[in-house]
């Protein structure tokens, strides 16, 4: 809630931009809301995007907590998605309970590997994690494009996508959540994502491991002196980060479509950075901000049809403005001006001698 004012300010600025194009901001807002909540199908799609964004947001924030910047969530979810599809198409004979467990294990492992590479290189070779994760994004995009175009192209489709994997590998037939939203892609992994966020909250607040991880992020040398190995936690946090990002791949492959489509992720990994930053890395805040981001993402998809001048890229402008607003809020909080929602007044905070709040 600390950044609520910043959020409103960002949204306000973004909507003011549409005035330049001669559209009414209220009308745009109405389209955004109608498109994301209008029908059960639309709302299901919003929740589907939200699921992926919770996973990638958690992934990025877990790395942030220990002082690392993981811009590779995109690559991690991509890699785990292609690994799961390759696994399921290579061993189609596995029967039900085992098959689902195995494919989830493959997903988790592949995400963990794609997180461990930058983690190990950072800890033992000193390679900067931003470069390595960025490069791995390109590598995983190349690998998936190789498999889809050379090995796994779906013969029944013109689009670059894999064949659909067997039902035993998917959750569709016992998915209660999907039944509530007919035809829409929201699935069981929505619940998993919420649980993951709650689990991460308890991990960081109630466990020694989580506390040590934060200690490494806050002050690595002090942590070293308290006999917390920062190397170990660099690896652990990036592996955890990779595992969390792989959830977004499972949401698509196991939960919804059962296939790998090139471009299935509209840069969830990068939107996850925005989600993590907006919520100041608080796991429960990530749920709320993932919801907000998915509303904008889904809502903007109808702008192409409904308006003359505004395209669906408008969602990016809203995201940018909201990020700026949330960033500004930090400044306002720090230097004394706060906006209390309930009192409705600007208040000056008392500053101590060093000028900090």
């Amino acid at each position, binding site marked *: 809630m600390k950044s609520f004012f910043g959020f409103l300010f960002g949204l306000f600025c973004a909507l003011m*931009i549409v005035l*330049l*194009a001669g559209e009414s901001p209220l009308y745009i807002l109405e389209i955004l809301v109608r498109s994301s909540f209008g029908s059960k199908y639309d709302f299901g799609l919003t929740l589907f995007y939200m699921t992926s964004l919770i996973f990638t947001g958690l992934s990025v924030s877990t790395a942030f907590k220990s002082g690392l*910047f993981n*811009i590779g969530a995109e690559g991690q979810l991509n890699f785990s998605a292609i690994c799961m599809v390759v696994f399921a198409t290579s061993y189609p004979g596995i029967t039900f309970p085992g098959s689902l467990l195995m494919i989830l294990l493959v997903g988790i492992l592949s995400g963990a590997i794609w997180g461990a*590479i930058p983690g190990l*290189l950072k800890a033992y*070779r*000193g*390679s*900067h994690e*931003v*470069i*390595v994760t*960025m*490069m*791995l*994004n*390109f*590598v995983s995009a*190349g*690998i998936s*494009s*190789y498999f889809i*175009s*050379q090995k796994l192209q779906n013969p029944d489709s013109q689009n670059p996508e894999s064949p659909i994997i067997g039902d035993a590998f998917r959750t569709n037939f016992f998915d209660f959540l999907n039944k509530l939203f007919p035809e829409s892609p929201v699935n069981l992994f929505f619940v998993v994502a919420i649980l993951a966020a709650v689990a991460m909250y308890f991990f960081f607040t109630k466990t020694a491991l989580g506390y040590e991880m934060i200690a490494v992020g806050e002050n690595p040398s002090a942590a070293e002196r308290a006999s917390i190995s920062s190397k170990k936690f660099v690896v652990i946090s990036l592996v955890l980060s990779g595992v969390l990002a792989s959830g977004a791949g499972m949401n698509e492959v196991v939960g919804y479509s059962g296939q790998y489509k090139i471009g299935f992720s509209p840069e969830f990994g*990068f939107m996850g*950075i*925005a989600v993590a*930053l907006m919520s100041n890395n608080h796991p429960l805040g990530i749920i709320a901000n993932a919801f907000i981001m998915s509303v904008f993402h889904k809502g903007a998809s109808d702008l192409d049809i409904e308006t003359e*001048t*505004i*395209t669906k*890229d*408008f*969602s*990016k*402008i*809203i*995201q*940018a*403005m909201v*990020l*700026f607003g*949330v*960033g*500004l809020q*930090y*400044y306002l909080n*720090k*230097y004394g001006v706060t906006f209390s929602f309930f009192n409705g007044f600007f208040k000056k905070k008392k500053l101590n001698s060093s000028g900090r709040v």
Partner: protein
Amino acid sequence: MGEIDIFSLSFILSVLRVSTPLIFAAQAGLLSEKSGVVQIGLEGFMLAGAFSGAVFAHLTHSSYLGFLMAFVCGACASFLFSLLVVRLKTDAIVAGTGFNFLMVGLIPFLTKFIFNSTGSTPPIPIELRLSYEVTVFAFAVVLGIYFLISKTRWGYWIQFAGEYPDGLTACGVSVDKVRWVSVFLCGGLAALGGASLSLFLSSAYSPLMTGGRGFIALSALILGKWKPLPTLMGCLVFGVFDALQIRLQGVPINGFTIPVQWIQILPYVLTIVLLAGFFGRSQAPAYLGKR
């Protein structure tokens, strides 16, 4: 390697071509990061430059004017970034990420407005396209920045702003002023990188044409350890791999055609290996990203 002659003139020229945008962007990032401002927004500045360069070249029928206007537009866009980061102390990673999003969203909005198209600008005539003078200029920029950083008073100020800002304040120089100027130059130079993409490597702006080059420039910068000349080398390394993957596509080697995708990921894998094997720890400016 059969038909591919690495040392032929045409190969070297193609390396220079593809590394030109990277050289501009990496030197731009260097200026900003040297002054202590983390620069994730290079991608956004490049997009802004690619777009404004193409638009102004189309409107004025002169690529040189387009190129110049790209610098102006990028530098102006940097005011927004500096306002947030330098003046209002927003986290630079938040602002940079937001800035990239903003450019991705704003440009289709503007093309719809100006050209009523879905994201591309009309192509400029082929004879108007820029040529290798852009590359020469890029190398001149590298030398200029090398001179600026290590030989001039302003350069020392920039380095101090990144290494020990309190010391700079103690000398009576405003840290914020130094950062405003470096981010201003950074925006303009990164935009030139974008403009060389739309006016030299191709002849129009197409959506998302930077394709992650801003981040690759950032990698080259880290690979070059925040020093102008090694950063130039980093850019050329990426350029060699990029040119190589264009050459190797569909060429059989001993009767075996390497899948295109393997060649495309080659530069990225090699970067990871190079970084892990030979370069070791990077030395970032001490005060980078701290407030």
